[in-house]
């Protein structure tokens, strides 16, 4: 597991706890929960840029490269889709939708790390 994974681990868990907590407190999605999901997106973008730099500088992906990139691109779409889905109907339940992003990104980042090494 590398730094990219740990960044997503921390940011993802924080975002999930924040969003789930807001949902439990019966709040609708607000700036804090949406920004926390944006932070997940940002850490995934850092992973993307870092990975492009590493591949460009000659590092080899141990597993299937297209599987790695498939995971990464899919993970990048998740926060966007979840925020879209959440603001279409701003109820407490949408915060649980946002909460799912962090853990999902975390699981996908773990898998990406496995593929890379």
């Amino acid at each position: 597991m590398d730094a990219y994974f740990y960044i997503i681990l921390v940011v993802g868990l924080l975002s999930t706890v924040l969003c789930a907590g807001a949902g439990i407190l019966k709040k609708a999605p607000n700036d804090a929960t949406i920004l926390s999901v944006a932070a997940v997106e940002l850490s995934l973008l850092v992973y993307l840029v870092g990975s492009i730099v590493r591949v460009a500088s000659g590092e080899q992906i141990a597993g299937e490269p297209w599987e790695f990139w498939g995971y990464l691109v899919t993970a990048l779409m998740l926060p966007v889709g979840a925020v879209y889905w959440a603001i279409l109907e701003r109820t407490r339940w949408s915060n649980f939708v946002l909460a799912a992003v962090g853990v999902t990104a975390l699981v996908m980042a773990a898998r990406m790390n496995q593929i890379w090494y």
Partner: protein
Amino acid sequence: MTASQQGTGDAAAAADSPSTPTAAPAPRDTRNTGPGRLLIAVYAVFALSATARAGYQILTKFSEAPLAYLLSAFAAVVYIVATVSLAKAGRTWFKVSVTAVLVELIGVLVVGALSLFDAVNFPHETVWSLFGRGYGFIPLLLPILGLIWLYRRRPAPRRP
């Protein structure tokens, strides 16, 4: 549904309909609001991951375990149908949802049991292997929550 349930449902709907302009204009015959949105989101994630996984298995190593990988593909289709039908309003989509979620429940139970008791013939992983243990048992939980949600949001019985 029995006749008596239909009767009470009808009465409730009749009592409801004239006096519910207070809440947002949420037609009763939808399942894509409130908790349903979370359910649909989780189904969408599973549809996506099951499709990707089945596609990967079939494209790269289909001959190793055709049955398991066809099951993966079948599971992916079930998740896609469930996601789409849950997001749609109306009686027909409700029936599609019920069918898809029931098939999903049977699938996870049968495949889970087979992978447990007949590990020789089911050594290859699918979403439903070991009752979805590889996915935190969410595949087992999801159809149960789905059926509860569908029951709570079942369409009002047709007026005679």
